[in-house]
């Protein structure tokens, strides 16, 4: 708008990028106008991050062209992107933990005095000034280890502004924020655009698209499915483009019929790996025939709570009573024996060994028992039969069980974990972020499975940072904040706004 009538900030034509086995971007055309907020939406694995990584010079396309401000460019490294005025805030933050906000922001471009030494005072005051200008509240001298997620994100945004970025790419910035923090972020984005910046905003939450963006591009399976002005479209239409069919956001289920108590947690305290208190005096119970949900922003003690319940982390104080017996100090294997299953949040490292074959992962918790083993020797025939049964029953899409688990898609990997965990018909299934990185089709299948477990008279403890998921799947929901349960709610009786307040630790 200001500079010589250039209208287009970014234009990519016919970009294709393949990784072994997947075409992450398939002849993608994508255009962002100067001064707009452009939402880029799509399910997990649609290819959004790949596209913006190409724009930022982290990945190189196999073919295709890029134009910045109407000029053809080749962005072969990050330096080049920065030079072109492109800035990016990654899905996972790229911050040096022991550095202060200012040290992170200035990294590589610190102002220097006449003797060639870094002028730290100058850097701190430059950072304060930019922060003030865009309404980003960050203390330049705060170390990133001590900073909240919101502050870390603002630091990342300041990093791009410090490098004079005019085109800002935010990759799923709201995934780690409470609804209130998201509102604050939106304020910042609006003030950026007021200052003449262009923003590419990636998300898979359609509500956010409708609220903040001017135009929206939808991707699916590496291809662009459509582009439109936000005001001319609707969440339903966008959802259909994202998934390729009608989606039913609501989970079909009947009223829960809880019976006897299967898990009781009494005044539990758990330390995290840094020795800080992650779970504080937490009590909850779960009955047979119900799904109890735990909602909350990531990093509020959910991980440590689940690890403590499944036996992967010692409890510091308090009681865990499972099926009438105290289990705080017994091993994970014994807990499994007693009927406690665990679908861990970190599928790739805790849930599976991606280097092993599917059958090996499927029998990882039971290979030593009859009929899979006899006299200490694994019976391959029984193991393979068992694995094939599970593969069929849980609809794991694979050419066979003698296939490396890592070669499956995220959704199918998750089905391997779930198949293994449910194969022993557990009394209680603890499912932690069970649909993270899973495509919508498989999300529906997993939700249905959880409801089926419930209906068969068993119990489920569902821990998820996806608010929509907990609210639609669980029968009772506890909101966790800084290791404490803020409130118990009935998902039918509360709205998003109220949940947002609870998730921020605010109780009326």
């Amino acid at each position, binding site marked *: 708008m200001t500079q010589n009538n250039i209208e287009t900030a970014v234009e990519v034509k016919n970009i294709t990028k393949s990784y072994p086995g997947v075409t992450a971007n398939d002849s993608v055309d994508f255009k962002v106008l100067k001064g707009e907020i452009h939402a880029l939406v799509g399910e997990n694995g649609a290819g959004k991050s790949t596209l913006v990584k190409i724009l930022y010079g982290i990945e190189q396309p196999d073919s295709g062209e890029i134009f910045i401000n109407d000029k053809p460019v080749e962005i072969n490294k*990050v*330096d080049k992107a*920065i030079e072109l005025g492109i800035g*990016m805030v*990654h899905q996972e933050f*790229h*911050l*040096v*933990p*022991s*550095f202060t906000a200012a*040290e*992170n922001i200035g*990294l*590589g*471009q*610190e102002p*220097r005095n006449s003797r*060639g*030494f*870094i002028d730290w005072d100058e850097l701190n005051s430059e950072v304060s000034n930019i922060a003030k200008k865009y309404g980003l509240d960050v203390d330049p001298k705060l170390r990133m280890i001590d900073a909240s997620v919101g502050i870390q994100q603002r630091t990342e945004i300041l*990093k791009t502004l410090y490098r004079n970025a005019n085109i800002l790419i935010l990759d799923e910035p709201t995934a780690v924020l409470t609804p209130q923090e998201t509102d604050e972020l939106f304020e910042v984005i609006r003030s950026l655009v007021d200052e003449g910046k262009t923003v590419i905003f990636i998300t898979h939450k359609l509500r956010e698209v409708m609220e903040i963006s001017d135009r929206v591009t939808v991707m699916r399976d590496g291809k662009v499915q459509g582009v439109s002005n936000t005001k001319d479209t609707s969440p339903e239409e966008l959802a259909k483009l994202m998934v390729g069919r009608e989606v039913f956001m609501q989970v079909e289920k009947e009223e829960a019929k809880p019976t006897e108590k299967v898990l009781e947690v009494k005044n539990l*305290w758990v*330390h995290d*790996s*840094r*020795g*800080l*208190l992650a779970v504080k*005096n937490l009590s909850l119970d779960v009955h047979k025939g119900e799904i109890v949900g735990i909602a909350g922003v990531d990093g509020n003690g959910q991980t440590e709570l689940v690890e403590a319940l499944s036996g992967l982390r010692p409890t*510091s*104080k308090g009681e865990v009573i499972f099926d009438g017996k105290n289990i705080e100090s017994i091993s994970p294997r014994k807990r499994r024996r007693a009927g406690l299953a665990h679908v861990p949040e970190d599928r790739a490292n805790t849930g599976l060994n991606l280097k092993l074959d599917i059958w090996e992962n499927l029998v990882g918790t039971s290979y030593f028992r009859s009929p899979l083993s006899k006299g200490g020797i694994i019976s391959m025939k029984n193991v393979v039969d068992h694995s094939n049964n599970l593969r069929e029953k849980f609809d794991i899409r694979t050419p066979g069980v003698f296939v490396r688990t890592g070669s499956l898609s995220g959704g199918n990997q998750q089905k391997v974990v779930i198949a293994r965990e449910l194969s022993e018909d557990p009394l209680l299934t603890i499912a932690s972020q069970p649909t993270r990185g899973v495509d919508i089709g498989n999300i529906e299948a997993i939700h249905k499975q959880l409801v089926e477990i419930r209906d068969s008279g068993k119990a489920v403890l569902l821990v998820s940072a996806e608010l929509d998921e907990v609210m639609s799947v669980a029968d009772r929901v506890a909101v966790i904040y800084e290791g404490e349960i803020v409130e118990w709610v009935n998902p039918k009786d509360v709205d998003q706004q109220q949940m947002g307040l609870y998730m921020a630790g605010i109780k009326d």
Partner: protein
Amino acid sequence: MEWLEIFDISLFRSLIRSATPIALIGFGAAMCSASGVLNIGLEGKMLNAAFVGIAASYYSGSALTGFIWGVSAGVLTAILFGVLSFNLGADEVLVGLAINIFSIAGTRYLLETLFKRRGFFSDPSIQGIDPINFEFLVDTRFEKILSGYTPSIYLVFFLAIVLYLVYYKTRLGTAIRATGENPEAAEDAGINTLRMKWLTVIFSGVLAGIGGTFLSLENMTLFTEGMSAGKGYIGLVASSFGNNTPIGTFGASLFFGLGDAIGIRLQGVYELDSRLILMVPYALTVVVLILIGIRQRIRVRPVPIPEQ
């Protein structure tokens, strides 16, 4: 209190001499660790440099030539380390170990084939590196403390200051630290992390080379089999004890030097078994490793659970 008498100027001088090779290795190790490279191959680099240094001095009759060749040997070994671990993707620790083992065997082999010696080599035609005497200090109070050391010793003090400035006050320093702590953040900021790692590895090779020639050409002019005697590892421990910072590493090296120097002096006072004294640096290393372990333990001390 007669044992107190050992704390005199000559103890100080012996402390500085003992601390020097450890600090040289320690500085290199600290820079490598700061950039995220665990360089345990420094022991081998030092040993190679010690041998090549003495061989070059023997053949050329020049101490300077010996020094240059010795440092080159350290650098070449560092390049071998870099190629194997960065370009070919081998495990850093295994490469370091391989280099150390290879260097012991390689120098022994060359000792026997080139000089037909076993165990050690010394010859009048080997030129050592002479100490530096400062004219302006002659007959002043400072002469005995500050003058008459070999060049590497002055270099260590100089490096402690220079590295401190580089580490905290230059773009290079922040780039190296960012590379070690979060390479993605560094790459994002346009820092070439691979270049940073190469830089610190080559730098550590230069220092290990100087450390090697310090052993064989300064103070004494001789080579003995395995004469690095674990100093490469002790330097690594010193850098770790000093949190991989220049000043911390320097302090830790002085601590090791002090232990060594006291051991040697006590031997004179109490006629202790010399083998016991030779053990002092290694015993100190174990003590320091325990201290490092305790320090880490203290860092994660769980916060107390409040009473209801």
